[in-house]
């Protein structure tokens, strides 16, 4: 059984501080709480993403985030392969939780990192993941202030699992969510969809691309803040469509808000090779995961402006207005096809297995 997925053989940047020839892989002792654990935490993890608070190595982080409300989110990351074009499980873990916090309308401030490592996981890979965490956290302007590391027996974990929990600060008066979605609201998406899911699947399926498909994994806090700043109360809700794709996000919000939603297939932004991959794998891009996109629900008379804000941002290339919120039926999402017919966009059942026959 493969413990680590394929990736470039050598890590970029500084060499792994733990001597690889002595400790080429994670052992049970590294999770035992004794000397080796200590070495792992101090010499590898702190070296990669340490800061004053984390280095205290207290049982918990002591935070002063100012007065006001907080947003709090948690997520676990079990992606395989661990390394993929444009990212890895580490950067994904940071972006994922930063984004959840940002979608609430909060400014992400701090993260925790919980690692579950499988005995035998290559030390070199852990170092790469840790560096990747560092880079993503810096880019998002968040500090990693507490964490935990456990090791499980060989065969009991898929190399590495990561849990991240994040806290963000909400400005006074910010009120985003399904409850604010109104009939007539414009539905916008910040860019081409399905890139992440296809990037992962393509590794698994041995697809090559003339221009390689990369994950779109990115931190959305900045683009989300820009939207909030410009639109104020006319920004009603945001959601990042991760597992289950745009379809799942829209279905959930339609249900929670008690509204209907109608989108148009011809308006969905799709990069051509991603589209080609979906065709040959028999996948509907609406259901494929994204990791660096947001869906915004905006008061109808401000849709133009919202689109400008998105399109003007580095992460908003290809942003589009894809549809609008309707009165109902509650929970129903429909799509007009490219030839003009209509269909319902249902909740996904199970995993979308690639259609072949």
């Amino acid at each position, binding site marked *: 059984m493969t413990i680590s997925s394929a990736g470039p053989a050598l890590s970029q940047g500084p060499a792994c501080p733990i001597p690889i020839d002595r400790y080429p892989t994670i052992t049970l002792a590294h999770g035992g709480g004794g000397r080796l654990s200590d070495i792992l935490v101090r010499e590898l993890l702190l070296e990669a993403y340490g800061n004053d608070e984390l280095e205290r190595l207290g049982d918990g982080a002591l935070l002063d985030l100012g007065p006001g409300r907080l947003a709090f989110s948690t997520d676990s990351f079990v992606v395989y392969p661990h390394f993929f074009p444009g990212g890895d499980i580490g950067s994904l873990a940071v972006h994922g939780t930063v984004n959840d916090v940002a979608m609430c309308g909060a400014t992400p401030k701090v993260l925790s990192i919980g690692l579950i490592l499988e005995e035998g996981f290559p030390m070199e890979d852990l170092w790469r993941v840790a560096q990747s965490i560092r880079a993503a956290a810096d880019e998002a302007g968040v500090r990693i202030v507490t964490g935990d590391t456990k090791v499980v027996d060989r065969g009991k974990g898929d190399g590495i699992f990561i849990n991240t929990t994040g806290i963000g600060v909400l400005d006074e008066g910010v009120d985003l969510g399904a409850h604010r979605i109104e009939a007539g609201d414009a539905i916008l998406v910040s*860019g*081409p969809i399905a890139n992440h899911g296809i990037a992962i699947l*393509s590794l698994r399926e*041995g*697809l*090559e*691309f*003339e*221009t390689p498909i990369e994950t779109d994994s990115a931190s959305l806090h900045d683009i989300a803040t820009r939207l909030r700043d410009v639109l104020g109360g006319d920004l009603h809700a945001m959601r990042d469509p991760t597992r289950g794709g745009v379809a799942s996000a829209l279905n959930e919000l339609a249900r929670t808000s008690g509204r209907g939603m*109608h989108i*148009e*297939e*011809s*308006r*969905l*932004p*799709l*990069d*051509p*090779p991603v*589209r*080609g*991959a979906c*065709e*040959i794998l*028999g996948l509907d*891009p609406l259901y494929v995961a994204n990791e660096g996109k947001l869906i915004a629900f905006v008061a*109808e008379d401000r*849709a*133009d402006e919202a*689109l400008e804000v*998105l*399109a003007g941002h580095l992460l908003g*290339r*290809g*942003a*589009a*207005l894809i*549809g*609008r919120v309707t009165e109902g039926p509650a929970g129903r999402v*429909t799509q*007009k*096809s*490219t030839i*003009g*017919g*209509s269909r319902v966009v249902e909740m996904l059942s199970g995993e979308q297995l690639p*259609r*072949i*026959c």
Partner: protein
Amino acid sequence: MCLGVPGRVVDVQPSPIGVPMGKVSFGGVVKEVCLAYVPDVEPGEYVVVHVGFAISRIDEEEADEVFRFLESMDELDEIHIPQPGESDPSLPDRFASPGAATAGGASSGPGSGGAEPSTDDTA
């Protein structure tokens, strides 16, 4: 039955197990495909691929058939038939953002997709 997707042959090579293989591109995605059933196919030609096998060549001449057929039908451009789920008129087309990637599915303008539809095709 089953999923058969058209793609463009990019190259042809014999394989380690002695079966003619090749690379076929589907809009930029390249996959290895068995070409045993389209002998003498050349790079640049299009084939229909099913479960990793090219099962048929695409005849470019015949591919235009649908569009010639449409041309030969009476011209009905002036008649607008409202369809279910008709595009919401309050979503103006100018909302497509500049530099957007290709939208999913066809655009309804003439000459889209690289084929040669009838020259009097109007959106």
